[in-house]
């Protein structure tokens, strides 16, 4: 990718970039398909069940069949719904989730867009999805959907704040918002040079807030099946519903990749003598571990109560994230400068 990006832009090179991005979109869709399958399998095993095993060998085509089923389902739009907003909302949820992936670097050479404001770009765009949930909930003209949408919005904005502040420590250490520079700043040969260890407080806050941003267990209150039927997407059916789900899993990809880049040293090997293994393998290993951890947490923890949810975000994570910023700044002041 790097080679194409440094040439002057012509229609030909723009077309090649477009094809690369389209290929990447297919890879992301493939990831989502098999992440759902893998999640069901992993949670099945953790609960001593088998998980999907009927469609295709080992149940490998289960999600493909599910997607096809959603595609041929009738699409009902309620009579009272606000038609335009109802149609826009699922697309609006998906578009930012894919667009944020443009700035993620995978190796030294393999990246799409190398923006100097990369991290800010990610944080700013990922916030738009909240808007889509509120829109979807409001446009449905349904009480459950409205309450679910409001709950999602309240939760996501409450956890957005500690999430973005916990990253400031990483920015302080690397002095850049460019994700490639952030990975380069973690290059010391050994795994203790990764931001994970100097920024352990920031990492913990980041991870908890990220799980909450993804609306996953133990923070899946917006979709609390037992009390809000399905939350903001209760009126959605067929492929419009699929786009909300797709956005959620694309964010799983995005958060896992971002965590790898920010805290786990991106493509760097954990020890100098392991350098012979290509960087992309290290990236994928760390990425897969984060994805697995998200499923693991889902299978392990019970859902938090709605009153505990807000207190955790504002009373614990936000002060801790701010403390981390100033501790890091003080450390740089005293020992590095």
């Amino acid at each position: 990718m790097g080679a194409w990006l440094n040439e002057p832009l012509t229609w030909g090179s723009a077309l090649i970039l477009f094809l690369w991005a389209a290929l990447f979109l297919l890879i992301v869709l493939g990831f989502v398909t098999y992440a759902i399958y893998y999640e069901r399998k992993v949670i099945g095993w953790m609960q001593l069940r088998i998980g999907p095993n009927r469609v295709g060998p080992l149940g490998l085509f289960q999600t493909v069949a599910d997607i096809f089923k959603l595609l041929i389902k009738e699409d009902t739009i309620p009579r009272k719904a606000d038609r335009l907003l109802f149609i826009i909302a699922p697309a609006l949820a998906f578009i930012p989730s894919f667009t944020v992936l443009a700035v993620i670097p995978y190796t030294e050479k393999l990246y799409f867009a190398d923006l100097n404001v990369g991290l800010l770009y990610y944080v700013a765009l990922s916030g738009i999805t909240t808007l889509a949930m509120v829109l979807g909930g409001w446009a449905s003209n349904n009480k459950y959907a409205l309450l679910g949408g409001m709950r999602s919005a309240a939760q996501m904005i409450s956890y957005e704040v500690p999430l973005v502040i916990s990253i400031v420590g990483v920015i302080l250490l690397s002095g850049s918002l460019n994700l490639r520079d952030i990975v380069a700043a973690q290059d010391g040969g050994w795994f203790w040079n990764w931001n994970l260890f100097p920024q352990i407080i920031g990492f913990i806050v980041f991870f908890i807030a990220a799980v909450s941003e993804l609306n996953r267990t133990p923070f899946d209150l917006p979709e609390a099946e037992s009390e809000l039927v399905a939350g903001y997407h209760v009126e959605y059916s067929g492929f419009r519903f699929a786009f909300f789900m797709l956005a959620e899993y694309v964010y799983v990809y995005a958060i896992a990749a971002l965590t790898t880049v920010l805290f786990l040293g991106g493509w760097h090997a954990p020890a100098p003598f392991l350098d012979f293994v290509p960087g992309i393998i290290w990236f994928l290993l760390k990425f897969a571990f984060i994805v697995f951890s998200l499923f693991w947490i889902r299978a392990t923890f019970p859902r938090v109560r709605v009153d505990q949810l807000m207190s955790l975000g504002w009373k614990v994570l936000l002060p801790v994230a701010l403390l981390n910023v100033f501790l890091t700044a003080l450390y740089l002041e005293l020992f590095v400068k």
Partner: protein
Amino acid sequence: MDNYVNHYVVVAIFLVLGILLPVVALTVGRLLRPHKPTEPKRSTYESGNEPVGEGQVRFNIRYYMFALMFVIFDVETVFLYPWAVAYNKLGLFVLVEMVIFAGMLLVGLLYAWKKRVLKWN
């Protein structure tokens, strides 16, 4: 970075693809899926009963409070990011300044805490 604009072209390509996928998928879906609307199907869901009144009911003021707090702290983040990028070039003075700035916002958070804004019920 002499071909600075190329990177933003890539972002634009991602945006276009992100818009194309829902448009194409829903258009293809329209050709495949059945379309037989009936009156009961088009009513909103309310646990199987006839929906009572409007769905866009008045909701708890608490959500508004959280939105207000979010705006305040998000603006703080907007100031924190450039500060963090330039920190190594700046002196101890800016650290003290940022502590004062964040301290003032923390007083606001404590005020909200005492006023029970952060309590759900």
